[in-house]
């Protein structure tokens, strides 16, 4: 029922306008709490020292990079299967945000790598997969920008997004395989069951804050996209009206 309600863009605009201030407030609160915990509660790592504070940006950004792609994949299913009118709006709005978070994850990862590994870039399995994901985001954005008609662009991008969703696990697996072939696991591992609560809680709060930030920006970008399509139809209408007037004048 909620999904059907949202199918009407005008209703979606009204609903999202009511929802946005609350989401934004929650996002600000979560960021305040998360940053406070990061800098004043979370202890330094005994191996990595204070650089562990980079993790509170890097891991949520990487999580969002993946979540954003899942949002786009679900939206693409909505475009292709249910022909939901807002699905391709959602997918198109999510792509630049996903690319931005992937970029943040890459930059913080390499800035973390410099003190830890002594170099800005290591062809580590995770960093490499994120780089491939970044290229896929940019390719999708490029595809959207080259096809002029928004409906056709949405369908083409939906096909590509779903092919990407099928291929991403394969790419991840092959990159992992390639990585173990070339360098036996020597990188710092911070995943695993023994992550201490004093580190885990700030991380979870920061992840929540980033997720809320994603939804705030996604809703705003979706509203922009709906307005952009309205503007486009109005421009086309105005142009065809002008042509109509011109031809009728010519006929007289």
């Amino acid at each position, binding site marked *: 029922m909620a999904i059907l309600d949202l199918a009407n863009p005008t209703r979606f605009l009204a609903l999202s306008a009511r929802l946005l201030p609350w989401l934004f407030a929650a996002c600000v609160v979560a960021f305040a709490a998360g940053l406070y915990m990061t800098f004043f509660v979370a202890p330094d790592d005994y191996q990595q020292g204070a650089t562990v504070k*980079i993790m509170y940006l890097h891991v949520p950004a990487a999580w969002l990079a993946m979540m954003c792609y899942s949002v786009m994949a679900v939206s693409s299913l909505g475009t292709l299967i249910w022909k939901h009118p807002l699905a391709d709006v959602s997918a198109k709005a999510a792509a630049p945000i996903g690319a931005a978070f992937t970029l943040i994850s890459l930059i913080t990862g390499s800035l973390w790598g410099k003190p830890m590994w002594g170099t800005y870039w290591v062809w580590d399995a995770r960093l490499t997969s994120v780089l491939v994901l970044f290229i896929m985001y940019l390719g999708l954005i490029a595809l959207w920008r080259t096809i002029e008609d928004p409906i056709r662009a949405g369908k083409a991008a939906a096909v590509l997004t779903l092919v990407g969703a099928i291929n991403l696990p394969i790419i991840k697996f092959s990159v992992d395989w390639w990585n173990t072939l070339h360098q036996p696991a020597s990188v710092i591992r911070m995943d695993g069951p023994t992550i201490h609560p004093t580190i885990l809680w700030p991380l979870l709060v920061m992840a929540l804050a980033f997720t809320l*930030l994603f939804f705030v920006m996604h809703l705003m970008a979706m509203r922009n996209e709906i307005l952009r399509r309205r503007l486009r139809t109005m421009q086309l209408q105005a142009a065809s009206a002008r042509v109509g007037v011109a031809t009728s004048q010519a006929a007289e």
Partner: protein
Amino acid sequence: MTDLLALGPHAGFIVACYLVTLGVIGALFAWILADGARLRARLSAMEAQGVTRRSARARKSNAGEAGS
């Protein structure tokens, strides 16, 4: 500030990370806001020219019929 937080020998990298994140998110936010403002301005300019969407026209004609 850095002394207060005691970020250790790699403070520069940590600060750089937070600044980069702030910069990227800030740029994205600013772009979304500017894009929205531009679109709203152009939409209202179109409406001022008298171009209306089909649904708006239908609503207006319905109101006209009800009035007459």
